[in-house]
């Protein structure tokens, strides 16, 4: 569903992402982890078309993002860490607007259930300025899920959510994966990655350090066996970065 080959992004002389290649299959949750400045957000932004790769190709559902951006983006949903909303549109209007952008024709039928599910029903006519950060985050997620995307990209999905929201978010991610969506999740919360991701992609300074399940990663580093993902992560990213490229 998501196929990345040789992705490279340069900002002048700075290499933000360096020759990154990976795939995310339907039903899979790939955790993207790395220290600050490793290129996680740039990778996600490249995958959704916000940032243009300097080199490499990106395919979403068989559509090349560069050559067929509209077809590729129709299958995508991107949930950034900071909820960006139009301050002059209400909650309900955001959903209707998104429905039109993605050609969701049965929005009338889906709207009440979606608002109710996200506990936004009594805020349907409220503007973003009247919502808490968590509520705005929920609205962004609702907009992202409205068109049943086949590929979902999450950047720090738990930021600003209360405990109930965190539980609901984790459930949403897992359910979407079970329904066949390919999910790429970037987070610093290693316990979240460990809990819900089927595979992990560790990056450092724009380069891939390791990819695979925890067991696959440990094949190349047997001395780390039995340690937590946090220990494995720190060992791979703070040392020389030698890992298992699968």
């Amino acid at each position, binding site marked *: 569903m998501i196929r990345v080959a040789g992705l490279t992004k340069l900002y002048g002389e700075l290499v933000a992402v360096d020759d990154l290649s990976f795939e995310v299959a339907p039903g899979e949750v790939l955790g993207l982890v790395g220290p600050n400045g490793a290129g996680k957000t740039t990778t996600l932004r490249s995958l959704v078309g916000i940032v*243009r790769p300097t080199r490499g190709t990106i395919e979403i559902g068989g559509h090349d993002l560069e050559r067929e951006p509209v077809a590729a983006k129709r299958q995508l949903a991107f949930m950034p860490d900071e909820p960006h909303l139009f301050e002059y549109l209400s909650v309900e209007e955001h959903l209707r*607007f998104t*429905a039109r952008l993605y*050609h969701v024709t049965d929005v009338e039928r889906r709207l009440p259930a979606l608002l109710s599910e996200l506990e936004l029903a009594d805020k349907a006519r409220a503007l973003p300025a009247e919502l808490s950060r968590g509520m705005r985050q929920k609205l962004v997620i609702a907009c992202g899920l409205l068109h049943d995307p086949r590929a979902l990209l999450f950047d720090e999905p738990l930021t600003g959510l209360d405990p109930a929201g965190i539980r609901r978010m984790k459930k949403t991610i897992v359910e979407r994966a079970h329904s066949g969506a390919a999910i790429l999740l970037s987070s610093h919360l290693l316990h979240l990655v460990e809990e819900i991701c089927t595979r992990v992609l560790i990056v450092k300074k724009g380069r891939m350090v390791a990819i695979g399940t925890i067991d696959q990663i440990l094949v190349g580093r047997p001395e780390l066996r039995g340690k937590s993902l946090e220990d494995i992560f720190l060992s791979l990213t703070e040392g020389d970065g030698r890992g298992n490229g699968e």
Partner: protein
Amino acid sequence: MIGAALYLSRRSFANSIQRRLQRLRQPKYLVGFFVGLLYFYWIFFRPGGRDRTAESILPTNALAGETIAVAGLVVIVLFTWILGSAETPFTFQLAETDFLFTAPLTRRQVLQFRLVRSQLALLVSAVFSVVLFSRGHIHASLLLRVVALWLLYSTLQLHNAGAALVRASLTQQGVIGIRRKLLSLVVLVFLLGAFWLGLRDAVPVVREAWSQGFMEGATALSGALHHGALAIALLPFFAATGPLVATSAAEFAERLPAALAVATVLYLWVMRSTLGFEEAAVEHANRVARRIDAVRRGRGEVRTRPGGVARPLLPLGATGTPAGAIMWKNVTGAMREFRPRTLFLLAVFVVVLGFSLGGKRGAGPLVGTLSLALTGIMVLFGPLALRYDLRRDLELLDVLKSWPVRARDLIAAEVLAPALLIAGVAWFGLLGAFFATLPDHGLPPLALRVPLLIAALAAVPAVVLVLLLVQNAAVLLFPAWTTIGPDRATGFEAMGQRILVFVGTAFALVIAVLPAAIVGGAFAVLVHTIGAGPGWTAAAWSVTGSAVLVFECYLGTMLLGPVLEKLEPSGLR
């Protein structure tokens, strides 16, 4: 407090200059910089160019200069009260709110800090304005003009802040607000009443004088402004503009104290209003907390009300093109900021003014003239002011770029939304002017006026579209040099920048109009040769030329599409 503000201003200015210089490493900015330099040279300093230019910021005729300055100031002040916002009187940057609102400072100190901070920007604006209008004729008296304009900008800034606080008090607190602002309201009503009475007495005399000749009319107008109730109402306006229109250093020095007195009174008014606002904030803690939170997030423009926001003017259909949805979004946003009732109130104001000043017989032409003037203002300044397009939406570039919409469709939809609104209001003014003057027999016959109306109706949307596309092209091509989002470049701090943008846009319009005028002209000649009169020839010219302009805009969006595709969030900084 003042020391901290000055330190912040000094360091911000130095760092911003350094960053701008670093940006010149990018070829497009370097090219833009040299084109800008050449443009400045050509406009202001080219050999032989000075002889034809004016010497000072205002006409050398002191009488005319004074009248124009006062009239301009009256219009700005009236617009502030009629159309101004009741939102926050001072725009704070996010960092300023985070540092200042949490610091152990009183609200008064925060506003003093903001006032001091804005002085550098106001000074730069004043320098820009004076250099722009002096057109390269640099001389010693320009320094006095810079000081005078700086003072005038500061005075206007204080006035606008005070007006916003009064409006906020009235809209949020109702009767309590009226009681709190009683003194301000009494002064306002007194000045308005004096202005109205003075205008009623003066208009017949001035009209009579104008019919005798230009000089007679100008002298009568100047005389009327200095006598009776009008002189009382305009006293602060004459005082504020006095130094600007002074013809010598001695006269400047003589007029300066009165201008400073006006600024001081306004300063005290704002500080006093602020105190009242703070007390009211305690009474309405929840509402104010939400407002401050909204302002802190830079999201304070759209007024909220219990039960949710007003329904959009048009519902968004479940099916249709994504571009249509983007247009709907922008129109809805604009209509929530500039409500339709504002247009209705403006129309009522124009009609009442027309009947009050013109009487039964003279109302039609006066309403027609005012409607045409409003149409002109709308066409010229609407595209600069109504920013519900890429200039605002680029703030959410990452959201825009994730949409499954082609870049050129996105640009077209973004630009069309404000174009529709501005053209709609301008059409309203044109039709208003036409119907208001329908029974008037002193004007050219209907057979000529109808095709001229058609010509104007065709030209207005095309011109508006070009102006908006130029604005959007500027923000796409040079995002770091233009203002993005609703909050930036507001107030008189950005006056110089706005003048520059306005001149640049006018220049681009001339370039765009040339081919349209040639093609339209050729078609008009053809129409004329087959027997059409002057009116229909003009209509043919305008309609064909407008079609060419629209086609140019289409080409423009095609060319700008790849620019948006390449634009990245890092390019906005």
